[in-house]
């Protein structure tokens, strides 16, 4: 079945001799490249923004914990 599928997939693009520009094959490749560049580009920016916010939260959380510890130690001393 896999062999049959690979044969179909190999036969589907225009044959080597035919004009790929004429058949529109190159345009399909270009359009799909645009789709994937945009998809991965957007996911990358989303991920980068999330990572930055995660870092901010960690920094603020550490700051808050430090403050709480300091407050506790001050209370113990007094």
């Amino acid at each position: 079945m896999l062999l049959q599928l690979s044969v179909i997939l190999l036969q589907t693009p225009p044959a080597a001799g035919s004009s790929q520009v004429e058949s529109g094959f190159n345009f399909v490749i270009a359009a799909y490249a645009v789709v994937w560049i945009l998809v991965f580009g957007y996911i990358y920016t989303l991920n980068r923004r999330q990572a930055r916010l995660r870092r901010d939260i960690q920094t603020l959380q550490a700051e808050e914990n430090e403050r709480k510890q300091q407050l506790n130690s001050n209370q113990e001393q007094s």
Partner: protein
Amino acid sequence: MASVTRPYKSELKPKIRVAGGFDWFDGLTWAMLVAFLLTFLFVAIAPTDETLKYSQRIFYFHLPANIMCFAAFFAYFVGGIGYWRTRQRKWDILMVSGLEVGIFFAAIGIGTGSIWARYAWNTFWTWDPRLTTVTIMLVVYLAGLMLRNATEDPARKAALSAAFGIIGFIDVPIVFFSTRWFPRGLHPVIFLNGDNGNTNTLGLEGFMVVTLITGMVAMALLFVWLLVQRMRLEKMRDDVAALAYSIQEEN
């Protein structure tokens, strides 16, 4: 920052689990990947169109991307109405997420359409009614995003966005019906009435319809996935603001 009152949530990536321990977001991710793989497979083996030849395969991503663009702007519109009525932050989150994801899908639709036009019409761009209305729609929503980013006060930002989302949505049905209202344009009417001798209202045959439906499912899953991710990003911003606010209050 002073308006932020929501307490900080320690769980950054909340996992909503149903009975049996199934993580719906992981399930969504896998479903989306499988749908895209199937779409690629079906695109490769789908029959070739007689007129547009191999280039017709662009359609399987071009149409779903444009439909998801409309869906995202509809989410923005719903968020706008919700915010206008309730003034709740959750609607603002839906608005900004819908706006950004809608612009993303509009870019895919215009990008793929432009490349296809180079083959079908021998030009990357022409001021056809559909292309013109889509451009106006994109410019309107980009202006909305810029306006949002330029406003500092959160309540004002959300109110302006809501007004923009409600008024700007007027352009979406104009884009959809532009090919019917101005039939002299180059862009074809996609959803026909079914009485023109074609096998269905899309004018596609057999396996082409299966491929299109698979592409539609894949794009719909990508739309939901991106929308959820974008909403999470906005919630994380709230968490940062809430945490900074509580530290400020303690001082």
